[in-house]
C-alpha cells in the first residue's frame, strides 16, 4: 500500500494549483522496547499519579495548567485551546521564492515529501524542473495538526520535498558561543586549512549506519533463534463468584428458566 498520507490538498502559486498529498520522508530507526513486569511479563501501563493524594488520577479529573511561577498555574480548557487553533490548510500557497542556500540548516525542522495526485503529474513535473533549474525554493505558511508552520518547498531528485522550518524566535542566540578574536599566526591558519583539505570528500551517507541499532537488531535476532520468547499471562478472570445476593438471585432465576423449558 502507498505511504499513508498525512495531509492532502493543493500546492499553489500565482495561477498554478497542483493536487498533492503529504507523506513522511524519514522514519527514525529507533528500536523501542515494551516495559514488562519482571514477575509475570505483563506489559506495563503508564498512569497519571497524584503525589499529594498518593493515588492514580482518572482521565476525567485531568486538566491543563500553564506554569507561570513555581506552583502557580493558569488553567486552560480544551475549548479555549481550540478557539486559538488555526483552521486547517487546504492549500500550500507559495508566497515567495528564495535561494535555499540562504537558509541556515539550523532552521530545518522536519522533512516530508509531496506526492502528486491524479491529474497533477504534469504541473508537478514542471514545477520540480523549474525549481531545480533556478535553484529556488518556495516559502509558504501551512497548518498541520493544529500548528501553523513556515515551510520550504524544494526540489530533490525529481520530487518535491517539504521542510517545516523553525520560526526565528525558536532559534537560540549564539552570540556568546564564538570566542573573542585573537591574533593567530599565518602558519597555524594554513596548517588547519591543509588538514581539512586532505580530508575533503563527497557526502556519501550510505557509508555510515546506526551501529547501535544494527547491533541491537542482530542481538534480538540471535536471541529469538536461541530462546522461546516469554509470554504475557492471559488476562484470566480471578475465581471470585461475585456478590452473594446476586449469585443467589441468579440461581433462583435459573431454576425457573430450566423449569419452563
Amino acid at each position: 500500500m502507498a505511504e499513508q498520507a498525512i495531509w492532502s490538498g493543493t500546492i499553489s502559486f500565482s495561477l498554478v494549483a497542483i493536487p498533492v498529498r503529504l507523506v513522511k520522508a524519514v522514519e527514525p530507526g529507533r528500536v523501542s522496547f515494551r516495559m514488562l513486569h519482571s514477575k509475570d511479563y505483563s506489559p506495563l501501563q503508564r498512569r497519571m499519579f497524584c503525589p499529594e493524594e498518593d493515588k492514580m488520577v482518572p482521565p476525567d479529573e485531568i486538566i491543563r495548567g500553564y506554569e507561570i511561577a513555581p506552583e502557580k498555574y493558569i488553567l486552560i480548557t480544551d475549548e479555549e485551546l481550540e478557539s486559538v487553533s488555526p483552521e486547517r490548510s487546504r492549500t500550500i500557497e507559495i508566497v515567495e521564492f528564495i535561494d535555499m542556500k540562504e537558509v541556515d540548516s539550523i532552521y530545518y525542522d522536519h522533512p516530508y515529501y509531496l506526492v502528486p495526485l491524479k491529474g497533477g503529474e504534469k504541473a508537478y513535473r514542471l514545477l520540480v524542473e523549474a525549481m531545480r533549474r533556478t535553484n529556488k525554493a518556495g516559502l509558504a505558511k501551512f497548518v498541520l495538526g493544529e500548528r501553523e508552520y513556515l515551510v520550504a518547498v524544494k526540489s530533490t531528485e525529481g520530487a518535491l520535498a517539504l521542510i517545516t522550518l523553525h520560526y526565528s524566535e525558536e532559534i537560540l542566540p549564539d552570540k556568546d558561543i564564538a570566542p573573542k578574536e585573537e591574533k593567530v599566526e599565518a602558519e597555524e591558519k594554513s596548517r588547519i586549512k591543509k588538514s581539512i583539505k586532505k580530508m575533503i570528500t563527497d557526502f556519501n551517507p550510505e557509508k555510515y549506519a546506526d551501529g547501535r541499532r544494527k547491533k541491537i537488531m542482530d542481538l534480538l535476532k540471535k536471541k529469538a533463534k536461541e530462546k522461546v520468547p516469554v509470554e504475557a499471562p492471559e488476562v484470566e478472570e480471578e475465581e471470585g463468584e461475585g456478590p452473594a445476593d446476586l449469585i443467589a438471585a441468579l440461581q433462583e432465576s435459573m431454576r425457573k428458566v430450566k423449569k419452563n423449558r
Partner: protein
Amino acid sequence: MSRKVVEIAGKRLSLSNLEKDLYPSYGFTKAHVLEYYRRISKFILPHLRDRALTLKRYPEGVEKDFFFEKRCPRHHPSWVKTAEVGRDEGEQMTVCLVNDLETLMWVENLASLELHVPLARAGSTETPDSMVFDLDPGDQANILNCVRVALILRDLLSNLRLTSYVKTSGKKGLHVYVPLNREKTTFEDTKKFSKAVARTVQKNYPELVTAKMSKEFRKAKVFINWSQNDSSKTMICVYSLRAREKPVVSFPLEWKELENLAGQDDPEKLQVMHSEAVSRAGKQGDLFREVLVKKQKLPHL
C-alpha cells in the same frame, strides 16, 4: 480517480474513488456503501451519537488489508465534531464523534466499512449506558447455538426484571444488550454483574456454554464474553456493515423471531443483508431505540 463534491447541510465534502469495488466477490462499490449508510443514517446516527468512533478502514476492499484508527484522522474537515478522551496510559486522544449525516459520509469516504463504538459516551467514559453479552461461537458451533444461549439469557435476566435486546453481530455471533441509562452504574458494576451471569449460565449449561476465553475451551461451545463491559472496549455499532464477503449488517432482531429461528438449521438465515436492513428498518422502525433510553438498575449489587 473519480471525485465528486457533494454538499450536505451546507458542508462541502469531496467523495473519491466511488467506483472502487469494496466487496469484490459480491460487487458492492464505495458508492453502494455510501448509499447504504445514507439510507440507514436515520437509524444508525442516534447509536453513534457522542461516542468515540473507532474506524476500521478497508481502503482496498474487504479482501485486502485493513487498519483500525482510534484517533480522529488529522486531516478531518473542520466541521467534524471531535472529543478528547483519556487512554489507559493517561494521555488524551482526539476522537471523532459521528453526530450527523455529513460526518457519517466523510467517515465512509475513508472506507471505514465497520463502525465500532464504546458502550459509554465520550463525555462520561466510565458510565456505560448498557451492559452487553457478546456471544461468540467456537469453531464447531454457529449462530444457532448462540440463539439458544441468547434466549436463556433473556429469560434469566427477565426474572430479575431486566429487559434485554438482541442483534446479530453480522459475523458469527449475537449481541445481547441490557439498557441501563443511569449515571450511577459504572463499568465495574456491569463487569461484576455480567460475569456472574455468564458463570451461572455456563454452570447450568456446560455442554453449550463456556465462560473461558481460550480457544481450546470453545470449540463446539458458545463463549459468553462479558469482558466487553469495559471502558477501553468497543462493540460493532447496530446497523453497521461488516467486512465479510457480502455486505452483511449487524441488525436488531425481535425475540419472537429468534424463537422461531431456534429450530431452524440454516445459520445464514439469521444474517441481514444491506438492502434487507434498509427495508426492514423502514418498516419496523428502530428495534434498538429502547437501548438508548430505557432506564434499568442492576439488582443485588
